[in-house]
């Protein structure tokens, strides 16, 4: 079937030469075009609106063509249809004007007469140009009308373009602001993009009180850095709510469950009358299931805490042998019922790890419990320990059915049902056990992994560090200094501290900080050119200590300068972003500066610390707006940074995001009184060391009502006397132990 000819509408009066030409030329256009003739622009618009019209031919001799802006009027009404202008005679000076009005092509009637095929070419050309224009139009509408803010920067970091959404959201940027939270780190990311094969950098960014996901890429055409910012505040809030929900629900489930457990126990212990053997059996079933529910709730709570970042390790030196025997003892009954031999071939000798014993016990119980569960009896589960220089590696090996290698990486993901991965059915858990193990081990600075072949069983392994870095530092210092004294040599320690470490940590996140510290440490090591006896130890709050044997004061200064310039001049690549860091470098040398390790260390710490020293930050918690404002203004006058909260819960919220040096607590507040809040703050590891000053009103105070002296509370009474309060604040701040 032949394709129907494309239609063009020609606007020309009946008597026009063009009309005559078209009448003649019709067949010679090869049948590809069908011409429909109209006499006015209005008719052409009407016809085009009906559809099927590919192009409009406008006769330059038509009366309307001589009127104002005929093509523009036409195109305004049917923008998708290209217009070809036919001028009566060849006049180049006019062509430009027609094209400017929006004609896709201009041909003179003379040209057409000479070469009739020219019409077909012009029409096809017009169509092609129309399509290209459309495409350009699409391109132009992105990013301009993209619903998210889009910013373009040149490679020097200057803003070159803002789309409508960006201009509306951040007028200050449109007004030419060069420093802006929305631009933070963009230039660094751009540099990183230039030097990597990564097409896009994605990161999270806080701008004002909103959270954004920022995608950065280099546009191929203009070689500019383009940033698209998607507002994810809502999503973040939802995630936060989910975590909170999970935590609250788990807590709320615990109380009724504990009650059920207690009374089942009372009944089965026959404290409420005799129980028959079958009843006793059923009570056992209930107990087993309560225990299962308890485990699941505990898992959920653990995970919620981990996700909320509120898991803190109570690390100490833990002896491995007793910990392992405790684990074995508690799981032996379970192993026994399945005819599984449970043993540990930990080598003799005292081995210790620097760890949180409860968390590590939980990891073991989980791994060994799983091993027993997935090993058909008779079988074996063996715990073994590998003693390495700085760490211990633990293995839990079973003789179970094994895991497909491709499933191994999935094991430690959240909500993975272990038995599904292992291709078995059985009692389901929360699928959180191994994910929790992984997080706990990683919090200790260890690694966890699994090895398996289907058939011969599975081995889970994890590592734990053996030492406390603090301990190691002191040991090294002591022995290094003893050596130096014996050989009458110099001995120096170098301290490197990263500027504005807290802000940096906030910006690049915990993982990013870890990567950054590693990279900086490597640079320090390379710059110092370590010799035997030199050690680099301890990262703490962005401070690194380097011990250098046989380096005197002058040598130390040279090295310090070298370290400073090596680090300050470098851009660090940390995963998805890059950053530059400023450092303070200082040193202390034996025998000039101090004679003992403690003295040297203290000196370096002091010199590092004094470079910073921001104003102490206080949190004022008071439900009375006036009192709150008064305290804030007064304390700010004295150079303190002051945050405020109007209630106990608000204070707790504030403290989640802001660390403070001291808290001023009003005693009489609704919802949660000062004393309740005091207890909560003192029991939370993050605030337990923060000094608290209670502000008590007159009248019937609980402490006075009880006739107590309240020696453990630090008090001021309302109305607050400025000098008294400042004195108390000074004392409390100077007595605070440095955070560890």
């Amino acid at each position, binding site marked *: 079937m032949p394709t129907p000819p494309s239609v063009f509408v020609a606007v020309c009066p009946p008597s026009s030469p063009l009309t005559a030409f078209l009448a003649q030329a019709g067949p010679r256009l090869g049948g590809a075009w069908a011409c429909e003739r109209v006499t006015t622009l209005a008719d052409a618009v009407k016809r085009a609106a009906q559809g099927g019209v590919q192009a409009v031919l406008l006769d330059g001799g038509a009366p309307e063509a001589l009127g104002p802006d005929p093509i523009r009027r036409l195109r305004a009404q049917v923008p998708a249809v290209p217009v070809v202008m036919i001028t009566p005679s060849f006049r180049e000076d006019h062509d430009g004007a027609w094209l400017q009005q929006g004609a896709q092509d201009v041909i003179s009637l003379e040209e057409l007469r000479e070469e009739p095929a020219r019409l077909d070419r012009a029409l096809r050309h017009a169509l092609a140009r129309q399509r290209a224009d459309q495409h350009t139009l699409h391109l132009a509408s992105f990013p301009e009308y993209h619903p998210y803010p889009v910013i373009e920067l040149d490679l020097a970091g200057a803003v070159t373009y803002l789309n409508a959404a960006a201009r509306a959201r951040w007028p200050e940027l449109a007004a030419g602001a060069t420093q802006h939270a929305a631009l933070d780190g963009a230039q660094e990311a751009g540099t990183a993009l230039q030097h990597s094969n990564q097409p896009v950098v994605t990161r999270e960014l806080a701008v004002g009180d909103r959270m954004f996901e920022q995608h950065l890429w280099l546009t191929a055409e203009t070689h500019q850095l383009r940033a698209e910012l998607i507002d994810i505040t809502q999503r973040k809030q939802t995630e936060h709510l989910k975590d909170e929900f999970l935590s609250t629900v788990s807590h709320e489930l615990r109380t009724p469950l504990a009650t059920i457990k207690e009374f089942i*126990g009372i009944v089965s212990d026959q404290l409420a009358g005799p129980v028959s053997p079958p009843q006793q059996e059923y009570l056992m079933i209930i107990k087993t299931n309560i225990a299962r529910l308890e485990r699941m709730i505990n898992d959920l709570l653990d995970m919620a805490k981990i996700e909320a970042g509120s898991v803190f390790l109570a690390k100490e030196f833990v002896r491995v042998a007793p910990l392992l025997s405790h684990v074995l003892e508690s799981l032996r009954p379970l192993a026994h019922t399945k005819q599984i031999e449970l043993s540990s071939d930990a080598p003799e000798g005292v081995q210790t790890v620097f760890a949180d014993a409860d968390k590590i016990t939980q990891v073991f119980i989980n791994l060994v419990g799983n091993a027993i569960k997935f090993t058909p009896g008779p079988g074996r589960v063996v715990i073994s320990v590998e003693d390495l220089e700085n760490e211990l590696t633990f293995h839990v090996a079973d003789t179970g059915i094994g895991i497909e290698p491709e499933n191994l990486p999935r094991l430690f993901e959240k909500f993975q049902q272990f038995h599904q991965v292992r291709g078995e059915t059985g009692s389901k858990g929360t699928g959180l056990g191994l994910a929790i193990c992984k997080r706990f081990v990683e919090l200790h600075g260890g690694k966890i992994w699994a090895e398996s072949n289907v058939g011969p069983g599975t081995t889970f392994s994890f590592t734990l560090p053996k030492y406390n870095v603090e301990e190691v530092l002191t040991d090294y210092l002591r022995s290094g200094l003893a050596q130096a004294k014996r050989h009458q040599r110099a001995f120096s320690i170098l301290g490197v501290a990263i500027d504005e470490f807290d802000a940096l940590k906030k910006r690049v996140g915990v993982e990013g900080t870890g990567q950054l510290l590693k990279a900086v440490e490597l640079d320090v090591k390379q710059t110092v050119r370590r010799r035997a006896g030199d050690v680099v130890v301890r990262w703490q709050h962005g401070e690194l200590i380097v011990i250098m044997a046989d380096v005197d004061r002058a040598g130390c200064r040279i090295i310090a300068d070298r370290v400073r310039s090596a680090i300050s001049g470098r851009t660090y690549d940390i995963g998805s972003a890059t950053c530059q860091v400023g450092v303070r470098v200082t040193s202390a040398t034996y025998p000039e500066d101090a004679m003992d390790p403690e003295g040297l260390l203290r000196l370096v710490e002091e010199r590092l610390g004094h470079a910073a020293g921001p104003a102490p930050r206080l949190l004022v918690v008071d439900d009375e707006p006036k009192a709150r404002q008064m305290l804030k203004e007064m304390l700010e006058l004295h150079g303190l940074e002051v945050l405020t909260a109007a209630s106990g819960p608000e204070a707790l919220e504030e403290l989640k995001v802001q660390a403070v040096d001291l808290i001023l607590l009003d005693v009489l507040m609704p919802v949660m009184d000062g*004393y309740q809040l005091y*207890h909560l703050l003192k029991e939370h590891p993050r605030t*337990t060391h923060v000094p608290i000053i209670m502000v008590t009103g007159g009248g019937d105070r609980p402490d006075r009502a*009880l*006739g107590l002296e309240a020696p*453990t509370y630090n008090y001021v009474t309302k109305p607050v006397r400025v000098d008294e309060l400042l004195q108390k604040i000074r004392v409390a701040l100077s007595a605070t132990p440095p955070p560890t």
Partner: protein
Amino acid sequence: MTNKKILLADDEPQLALAIKIRLQSRGYQVTTASDGRQALDAMAKERPDLVLLDVLMPVMDGYFCLREINQRYGRGAIPVIILTARDRMKELFELEGIADYVIKPFDHEDLLNRVDQVLKQREAGASSTEPPAST
């Protein structure tokens, strides 16, 4: 085995009942209170040999109740065992003088043993060790 009197202050009445039943099974006489104020009132009526004290309670919390007990009867005169779900407040309470600190959820057997222990020590050492401070 004994007819010693124990005062139990906890604002969870059902859990308190469970603890009471367990204590009674060992022969203790148990009185319950649901906040610190009630506990002090009950003590004024009849002096107990030991107090089991929850911490987060309405009206008067365990911390103030403990201090008031020590104030009224002399520090350590009446042994107090703190029962709490919080594990980080032990030092704060030890400053005030307590006989023991038990973290919830606890094993009832463990709690009973601790109660026995405290009362046994008290009996053995009542004459020899520190005399109760006068109020």
